[in-house]
């Protein structure tokens, strides 16, 4: 067992400098108003340089541990201290390497950044490790993106080396061909039936960085433009799914922290770096430096920049994504994910249809609200079925059934097999969202490990008001929220996790923050459901008026034989939704088969098309992988 990425691994390399990160701890960045090329460009470069500066400053002369690959890359990117850098590389390369693709891409970056700066000895030292150290390819799409992009670039940097000079016994040409074939295949998948690790809170770095490297360094113009296009694609997806720079909506893979504090994700580094509209997480997310070292070679297309920053109009975006590969116990290798995001100035509502996408780390739906400063704020509301299952694990992992649950906690996932968990998807959940109404229905077998539903109530909600009507009203930021559990419930404190020092694997302690912490609405009933509706504070005279409006809405539901809800939403839509059946809106069935790869005011792509059209105002950018064409158009 393996492969649950803990990002802290790489952060750990930068031995915690004691000085401040200006953007992380400083005031909220002012959303850009000057979209001129020079203003955007200089601010973007300044942000990248802040990262580099921070790393350069973190080197302590008397402590070699503070001088690692990230510091090396930062110095090379700034063309500083090439001699010292070379010497340090020789030193670092003199011992066996580890970390697999997380080793590969940094050292690929160092090799390229240093190709005209490093001593021959330093270059040879790195190159030598590509023979002696055998990095694993991993088992996720992000692993492979890093692995193959790195292998591709290194085999281009050393284009004619024989098979016995590479760890895997393949020649440069063989490695290059294999890497290219996979990357093309992956891009093909992602641009026809959707991104696998969609809406990534963290993994965006593991795609964006390799793609930036391809765009920057690939010699083959095809791979160069592919990298460029895919990077645009990823950032367009990010831009469209962020509100004030904070990623919203469902995620293929995330973690407990990012689910509660949406801002605290690597994606916030990318919003900061590329869009300038939210602070970066500490240490620039750990991975940030690897983007920053090559950031100058990329320009965020203006249409994407504007897309990230303009929330003057509400919009609804529907995307098609993919589940992780289901090796077994599924009729389909990759099941389609129908993702919805409804974005308003004050809040965002996002979901997919429920069911299994990733065995451990998925997040299915939520309502998140805008806050002036997102740091430390748990600005979200959602419910989950706390599902834990060996068979679900086996679906995705090529493992025997018994040991995985037992090991998760030592692999950094202590919350997987606990009844009060708030992360993960379930085969027993069905979700339907129409604008800012979400209905989640549950039909959990009685013999399930945890036959209950956990609803998350943030510490940052105000005026939480259980109403006689059955609705629970609350306010988050400038958003009124109404939460309707469909079965009896009780409240618990949501316990937090504290990581304990450990030499082997991870150890955790659970913490109760008491009344000051988050609360869990626990509804211990297998047949169950949650309805959430949201509205802007500005839409109602006062809280009471919102409550009255919610109460006035017709709502019928029953839970047996399967949960079913009929209701009118705050937006006047008549919804009929039965567990296991296609939802109906105003009498019309939702036909997921008709969903496009992207559909909305800003991103559009037909299923299977390999072609994304990004639109914002009069700007349009088309990324066409069929013809390897980037088209920038301005509508007159």
């Amino acid at each position, binding site marked *: 067992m393996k492969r649950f990425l803990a990002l802290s691994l790489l952060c750990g390399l930068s031995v915690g400098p004691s000085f401040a990160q200006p953007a992380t701890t400083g005031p909220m960045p002012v959303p850009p108003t000057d979209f001129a090329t020079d203003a955007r460009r200089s601010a973007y470069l300044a942000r990248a340089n802040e990262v580099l500066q921070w790393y350069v400053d973190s080197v302590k002369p008397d402590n070699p541990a503070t001088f690692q690959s990230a510091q090396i890359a930062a110095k090379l990117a700034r063309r500083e201290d090439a001699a010292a850098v070379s010497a340090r590389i020789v030193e670092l390369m003199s011992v066996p390497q580890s970390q*697999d693709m*997380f080793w590969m891409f940094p050292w690929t970056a160092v090799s390229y950044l240093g190709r005209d700066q490093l001593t021959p000895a330093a270059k040879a030292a790195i190159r030598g490790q590509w023979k002696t150290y055998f990095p*694993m390819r991993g088992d996720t799409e992000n692993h492979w993106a890093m692995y193959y992009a790195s292998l591709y670039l290194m085999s281009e940097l050393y284009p004619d080396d024989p098979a016995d000079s590479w760890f895997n016994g393949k020649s440069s040409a063989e490695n290059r061909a294999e890497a290219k074939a996979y990357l093309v295949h992956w891009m093909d998948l992602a641009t026809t039936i959707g991104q696998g690790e969609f809406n990534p809170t963290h993994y965006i770095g593991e795609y964006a960085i390799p793609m930036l490297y391809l765009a920057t360094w690939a010699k083959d113009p095809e791979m160069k433009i592919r990298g460029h296009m895919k990077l645009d694609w990823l950032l367009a997806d990010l831009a469209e799914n962020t509100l004030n720079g904070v990623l919203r909506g469902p995620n293929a893979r995330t973690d407990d922290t990012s689910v509660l504090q949406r801002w605290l994700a690597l994606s916030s580094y990318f919003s900061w770096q590329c869009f300038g509209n939210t602070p970066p997480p500490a240490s620039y997310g750990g991975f940030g430096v690897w983007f920053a070292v090559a950031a100058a070679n990329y320009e965020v297309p203006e249409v994407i920049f504007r897309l990230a920053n303009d929330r003057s109009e509400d919009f609804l975006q529907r995307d098609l994504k993919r589940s992780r590969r289901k090796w077994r116990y599924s009729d389909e290798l990759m099941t389609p994910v129908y993702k919805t995001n409804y974005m308003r100035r004050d809040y965002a509502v996002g979901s997919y249809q429920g069911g299994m996408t990733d065995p451990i780390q998925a997040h299915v739906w939520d309502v998140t609200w805008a806050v002036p400063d997102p740091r430390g704020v748990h600005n979200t509301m959602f419910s989950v079925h706390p599902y834990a299952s060996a068979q679900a694990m086996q679906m995705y992992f090529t493992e025997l059934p018994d040991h995985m649950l037992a090991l998760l906690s030592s692999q950094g996932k202590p919350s997987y097999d606990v009844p009060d968990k708030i992360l993960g998807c379930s085969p027993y959940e069905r979700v339907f969202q129409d604008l800012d109404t979400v209905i989640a229905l549950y039909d959990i077998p009685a013999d399930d490990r945890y036959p209950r539903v956990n609803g998350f109530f943030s510490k940052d909600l105000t005026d939480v008001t259980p109403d006689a009507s059955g609705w629970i009203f609350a306010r988050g930021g400038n958003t009124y929220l109404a939460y309707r559990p469909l079965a009896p419930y009780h409240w618990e404190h949501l316990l937090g996790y504290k990581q304990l020092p450990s030499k082997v694997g991870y150890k955790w302690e659970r913490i109760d923050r008491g009344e000051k912490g988050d609360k869990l609405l626990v509804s211990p009933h297998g047949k169950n459901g949650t309805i959430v509706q949201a509205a802007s504070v500005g839409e109602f005279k006062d809280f009471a008026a919102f409550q009255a409006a919610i109460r006035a809405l017709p709502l019928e539901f029953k839970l047996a034989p399967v949960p079913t809800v009929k209701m009118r939403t705050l937006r006047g839509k008549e919804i009929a939704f039965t567990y296991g059946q296609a939802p109906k809106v105003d009498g019309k069935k939702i036909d997921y088969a008709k969903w496009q790869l992207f559909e909305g005011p800003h991103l559009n792509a037909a299923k299977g098309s390999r072609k994304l059209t990004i639109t914002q105002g009069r700007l349009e950018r088309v990324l066409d992988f069929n013809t390897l064409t980037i088209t920038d158009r301005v509508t007159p």
Partner: protein
Amino acid sequence: MRPPRILPLLRVGALAGLLGLLTAATAATHDLYLCAAFNNGSRVMGSNDGSSNGLFKRTADGFRHVGINYPLAISATFDPRDAKVIYVACLSGVLRTLDGGTTWRLVTGWDETEPKSIAVDSQAPDHVFTGLPDGIVVSRDRGQSWQRRERGLPERGKYTQVVRADRARGGRVLIGCESGIYLTENGADSWRRVLATKETVNDIQQSPHDPRRWIAVTQSAGALESRDGGATWKIIPGLPADKALYNVAFDARDPQRLALASWSHGLLVSEDGGATWTARNAGLPGEGIPRAWRTAIDPDNGEIYAAIFGQGLYTSGDAGRTWRAVPAMEGASVQTFTFVPSSQP
């Protein structure tokens, strides 16, 4: 305790009981290879615990690491003509050495991943069969190139955990899949299902005494036996079917002795050819039932090996009645045992 960092040769402890083992090992006619990792089972991609992992070969001084330090090596197979030709199924694909482990090549490409098991057709040793999470690839040039050969396998349900070639008849291979056992008799040109299961078939073994006799263990269908070369199967009654069985081992010296590993039941031994089975867990580590991951029986001396998940390797000279820890294997996770006749060049 953790193994020393960066140590390809595992040091041998001074346990008296060990000497017998080593004596046996040095006198053995088989070499034993293990696929093992020393990461306490908690391998996180990208982590660094400094351990040496992958393929190990038993030597007089203990288990010596061979070749690449690869934490997720699953199984090793060798060319019956030339034991220097070794195939290792690992997370990245199939690793092959032609020189006994000095140099290696990852012979598969991007579209083969996470193989679990490899079989070489002893009648046509250039033919290599690899089981993947999504089916079967076959090489007819000692692993240099690979083709999918899945005619007769279902579109879904061909997750393949184990691949075994019939040593008696060329082109005859059995595979244990998610949806049962499939058989080819023409070198994988076509397959047919010979046993249907709902969950994965975890291991298949051919009897060293009677090539028509096969035993399979499964995740939820218990253990099964075939007496007709794998064409038909029947449940072995004495074994539980409620929990997954991981693997099974014949004793090449004694047709009555069998061993079976299971996470939930521990180490099960039969001394009557499989008619009855007894748990032999005393002395194995763990609270309650030991997490028996793999078992094997040394063809040279009948020692039973038990790999306990994350807790090392144990051996028993008395059919599991008592167990000894194998020194310097503490914390190891042993994935497979491969006995290679040492008479091979």
